[in-house]
């Protein structure tokens, strides 16, 4: 039985697509067959992040319309053999697909893959209903900001109503220095409001922007930066492994900063 996980958030711009692309890649590198589905019809960008834009021939819409077979629309990722992408159509609007059609499509994909990751559009409109139609698990991506957490809370409620369980949480773009200075919500604050299990904490990382622009998922780099390591840990947790959460304060610190903090603690 394959796992169909919808990656969602209430607010846009929290890094949902980046997390989906990297998590898909990380799971594929753990030996699972993974398909990532762009459910954001009208505003596709998962193909960009994976660097597969120039290889998209058909999209999910052509599959639904019966103009091509599902296998034809799937774009295989050469760097990561187990990973494929089902792209969305850019030229059509979000209402071009119905939830039943989406469910049918996802069912077909899940019969031939271990993981189906659905990149859900932000918000709770028709696109959201399409994206969650075939899912049996959900991951909420949020940044530690009031507005993002508020919208995430609404989405958790909608997922509960759609009887999708379990729903897990990724706190993205955390800045440990700002948390330490009480300028940013802490992971505990976020978890306290949303009251769903945490599956990962991803620190803010400049490298994310670089990798997004290059179309090369962060987790593929030979010397994975902190954000990529965090995403790899999330993939292992999804696989059922128990992976400790590193001390949030130490995320993003250099060795010297860590040493300094350690010494300071000892002095006090």
């Amino acid at each position, binding site marked *: 039985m394959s796992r169909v996980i919808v990656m969602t958030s209430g607010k846009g711009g929290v890094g949902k697509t980046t997390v989906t692309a990297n998590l898909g890649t990380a799971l594929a590198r753990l030996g699972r067959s993974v398909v990532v589905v762009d459910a954001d019809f009208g505003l596709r960008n998962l193909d960009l992040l994976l660097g597969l834009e120039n290889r998209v021939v058909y999209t999910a819409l052509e599959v639904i319309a019966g103009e091509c077979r599902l296998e034809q629309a799937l774009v295989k990722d050469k760097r990561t053999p187990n990973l494929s992408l089902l792209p969305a159509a850019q030229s059509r609007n979000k209402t071009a697909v119905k939830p039943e059609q989406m469910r049918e499509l996802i069912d077909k994909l899940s019969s031939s893959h271990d993981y189906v990751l659905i990149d859900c559009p932000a918000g709770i409109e028709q696109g959201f*209903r399409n994206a969650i139609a075939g899912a049996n698990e959900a991951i909420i991506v949020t940044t530690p900001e009031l507005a993002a957490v508020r919208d995430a*809370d609404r989405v*958790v409620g909608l997922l*509960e109503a759609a009887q999708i369980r379990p729903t897990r949480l990724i706190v993205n773009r955390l800045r440990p220095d700002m948390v330490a200075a009480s300028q940013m919500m802490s992971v505990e604050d976020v978890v306290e*409001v949303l*009251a769903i299990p945490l599956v990962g904490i991803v620190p803010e990382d400049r490298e994310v922007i670089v990798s997004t622009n290059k179309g090369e998922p962060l987790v593929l780099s030979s010397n994975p930066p902190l954000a990529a390591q965090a995403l790899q840990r999330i993939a292992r947790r999804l696989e059922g492994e128990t992976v400790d959460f590193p001390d949030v304060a130490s995320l993003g610190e250099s060795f010297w900063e860590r040493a300094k903090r350690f010494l300071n603690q000892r002095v006090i």
Partner: protein
Amino acid sequence: MTGSPVLNPQGSPPPTPASRNLAAGTVYFRSDSQGLHLHLPAGMDWDEVWESLIWQLRSRKPFWAGATPLTLWSQDWELDLPTLQTLSALVSQYQLQLRRVQTTIRSTAIAAATLGYSVEQSSPLEAIPPVPTDTTPLYLRSTVRSGTAVRHSGSVFLLGDLNPGGEIIAGGDIWVWGRLRGVVHAGANGDEKALILALQLDPTQLRIADQVARPPEAGSLPNTPEVVYLQDNVICIATIQDFLRREV
């Protein structure tokens, strides 16, 4: 510090008329000797109705006994066979048995009769919309999340948190056995004696009858249950100990 007005009262009355029907715009359950009655509201999306129905079933489930008969008041909703079947399957997950269907729509009546429910069909003209002015308390066991609004004409007891962005509007008192962080409106029909009680009070906004108050800008929360009440048209907060002493 008994009865000190801790909040900043705001002059403007709440945006909602005091006499409105609290149950309008939500899926509504009421109980009588015949079992439970489910009222479907008019003027909503079916998606919204469905969402609200599931939420209510989930959060109210602990409060009824197994195999309770259910009457569906579907008004002018046009429900086809599959929809009725899905609905029946859904409520049966929560130990409710759909028995009767009331409707003003012929096709719904036919669908319900086909599925073997007893049908009460009233013509749209003579149909008196049941106004659920039920003042029995509403017991909920759930988290009320952002975007969820609970409306009830009696008191509301919530076992769980009220998150920011969530709302409870009650004709009577509001008790939150958890953290109260959203918007609450007690005595929404104009009852100035209505109270708001919470284990931890950190609201977005408080309303009693036609008074509104917002919390002070800063300040740490006392780690003790608190009571909100109306005194001389000012919303006041007291710790539970102080409030009880005042009552005596």
